[in-house]
């Protein structure tokens, strides 16, 4: 029952839109959700501080992507504390942990934070290798958790299929590979020979799988001509670069991230890897924006984990972003990445959930009440509308990606605000209750199976 249609009408059905630069206008006094003052709380609220545990990469090549998470978290905590704390009474205290210590040490550290430091809530985490290990531990310990990233589908598909205490705010990972595939198919529809360079762990394989299943639906005849799987944390990509070039691809796809990506692109420049093939990344510009030099190739698809880039929407089209970027820059003297957005709005979303629960039950709401408010919450963030799906506790927002460009305004290379691609999230990820792997299919993820079964095949 494969429906045949042409690529243009298929992309139209996906609702893919290209952004255009906005005219600079004066800012009308709009106050985003994160900055609104709250009504006085009901009942008596204890004044004991709230203890948060925040885990992210503070050292190693992951830090250039992960450290902004802590900065976003601290900025939100300072804002909330400046207004007296959550419900005007409970200030936020944060203890941190370095995710770079390794999965086993991270498990130990989460237990320490809950059992010894008695944290009220756990946030952060960047790597998809860590959330499937930490999620079950958080459920065991009954500690309310909002993961900022570590967005593997595997967490909800397999590791924690029925979450109670665990949530996640950034887009689900399968959307990342699919977003990249849609952008590439729309931009370079004749690219058939695809070379891949992905980190050798769950994120890389997830990106590979979802890019290919979606891309093949849109570009018939597409084939993989080379695969490179560098170990996560590698800084020498020479072998992978030469292998990729020698396969003579039309398009190179990569999900290498953080400091690894900075090393990859700088080495690839020396080999001229970007000269003869198009390049599309799921997460190249996911790092703190200033980590990308002006020497980065222009006009490539430089993904942002399909979540957020600080120049989009530009101008005053989405004041929540403009205000967030201004505050962040004022505090840290740098620009935020998608982790900063996630960590910052994690706290504000939690604050809103507590306030809502307080209006219903009075006093300091227990965790059950807060969880019921987080489930199904619709929230305004710098990255757009965010929806927390009740069935799997996963945050969904419209996916974005874009093209790299040097502009005079910034000391580093940015995404071109005039060429941003936005895709409605429900068009690229499996709907609620779509069968998970192991239930009637053995595909890598529910979304993979959903694409395979429901997306039409574009005619050759």
């Amino acid at each position, binding site marked *: 029952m494969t429906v045949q249609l042409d690529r243009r009408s298929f992309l139209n059905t996906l609702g893919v839109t290209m952004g255009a630069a906005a005219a600079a206008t004066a800012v009308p006094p709009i106050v985003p959700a994160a900055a609104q003052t709250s009504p006085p709380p009901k009942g008596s609220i204890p004044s004991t501080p709230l203890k948060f545990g925040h885990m992210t990469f503070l050292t190693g090549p992951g830090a250039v992507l992960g450290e902004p998470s802590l900065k976003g978290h601290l900025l939100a905590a300072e804002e909330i504390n400046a207004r007296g704390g959550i419900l005007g009474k409970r200030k936020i205290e944060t203890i941190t942990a370095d995710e770079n210590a390794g999965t086993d040490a991270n498990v*130990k550290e989460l237990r320490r934070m809950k059992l010894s430091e008695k944290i009220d809530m756990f946030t952060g985490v960047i790597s998809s290798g860590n959330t499937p*290990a930490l999620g*079950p531990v958080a459920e065991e310990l009954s500690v309310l958790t909002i993961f900022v990233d570590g967005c593997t589908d595997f967490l909800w598909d397999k590791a924690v299929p029925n979450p109670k205490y665990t949530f996640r705010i950034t887009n689900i990972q399968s959307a990342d590979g699919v977003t990249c595939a849609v952008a590439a198919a729309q931009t370079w529809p004749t690219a058939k020979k695809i070379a891949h360079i992905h980190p050798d762990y769950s994120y890389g394989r997830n990106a590979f799988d979802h890019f290919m299943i979606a891309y093949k639906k849109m570009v018939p005849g597409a084939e993989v001509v080379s695969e490179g799987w560098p170990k*996560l944390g590698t800084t020498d990509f020479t072998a992978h670069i030469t292998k990729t070039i020698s396969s003579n691809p039309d398009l190179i796809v990569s999900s290498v991230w953080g400091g690894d990506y900075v090393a990859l692109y700088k080495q690839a420049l020396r080999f001229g890897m970007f000269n003869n093939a198009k390049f599309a990344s799921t997460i190249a510009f996911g790092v703190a924006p200033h980590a990308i030099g002006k020497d980065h190739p222009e006009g490539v698809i430089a993904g942002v984990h399909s979540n957020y880039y600080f120049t989009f929407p530009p101008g005053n089209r989405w004041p929540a972003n403009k205000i967030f970027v201004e505050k962040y820059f004022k505090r840290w003297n740098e620009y935020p990445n998608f982790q900063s957005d996630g960590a910052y709005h994690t706290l504000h979303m939690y604050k809103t959930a507590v306030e809502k629960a307080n209006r219903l039950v009075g006093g300091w709401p227990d965790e059950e009440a807060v969880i019921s408010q987080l489930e199904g919450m619709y929230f305004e963030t710098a990255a757009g509308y965010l929806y927390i799906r009740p069935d799997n506790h996963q945050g969904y927002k419209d996916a974005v990606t874009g093209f790299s460009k040097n502009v005079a305004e910034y000391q580093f290379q940015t995404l071109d605000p005039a060429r941003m691609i936005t895709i409605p999230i429900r068009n690229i990820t499996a709907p609620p209750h779509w069968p998970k792997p192991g239930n009637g299919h053995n595909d890598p993820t529910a979304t993979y199976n959903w694409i395979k079964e429901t997306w039409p095949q574009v005619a050759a």
Partner: protein
Amino acid sequence: MTAMTTTTATADTGGAAFLRLLIAATAILVGLALLPAVVDPYQTVLLTYGLVMAIAALGFNLLLGYTGLLSFGHSAYFGTGAYTVAFIVRDLGAHSMELCILGGLAGTVLVSALFGFVCVRHTRIFFGILTLALSQVLWSLAFKFFWVTGGTDGIRVAYAKLTLLGGLVDFAGPGSFQRFVFAYYYYVLALFTLATVVMWVIVHSPFGKALQAIRDNETRASFVGISVRRHRWIAFVISGAFTGLAGILWVPLNGLTTPDVLYWPFSGEIVFMSVLGGFRTFAGPIVGAVTFNYLKTAAVASTEYWQLLLGVVLVTLVLLLPSGIVGTAMRLVSRWTR
């Protein structure tokens, strides 16, 4: 622990000394048994990790301290134990921890017998490199065959799925984590005690003396009629089995197993534990393992420069206490009692 250390590899086991050792060991054991009642559950978890690593270091030191072979690949046996348990629980659907231990030990003995057969043909750096290389073969298998091993995600082994003592103790139902923490601590403590006693008997047996003879002078040992290679091989297998037991016990505690425990830095940690505690003494690796575990956890928890802190502390300890914590303590005690 200091009293226990008065028995070194070469000390006499005669009457009074043995009695003193027994009293000291019992006192330590009673202390360890009472500890969970006074410290918070997290400290109990941490100490369980420490005891597990102590079993690994104890096994490792049979090779380094008593046979004179520096293995740089003990992650292989720890990891084999851990992954065997994970496979047993995931693929065979077994729940009994005892079954996991038996299966895990069988797996480790097999692997260490095979690896040992190859490695004991050499000594010194060649031996070290061989053990390292073979362990990294296992690491890359676990890393690359992700459809079997889960790759870097590893395999999850939920404690709630396991039962202790043939099904007498289970952890079903909510809030079971606290129960698990206490029950498992005593479980590990019992096996740690057993492992320590067995190792003590081994190193003080004629077989243990033969290993020390080989360590001290290989040529002379073979002239006495000791089959050097076979003794080394048996020591290798015993050493691997102890480290494997540690890996087996570590899995439910950690909740999952990842290729990290097969990677060479983990072998390095085991070496360091033994050196830190003092590999010339029987109790050194035990003290070293528990200390290292606290040290690393405290460093990670206290600063983002934990690697630097850990490095500085470890280098300082090695420079100031070349005979390890236990060796130094013994020297101080003997100077004081003289």
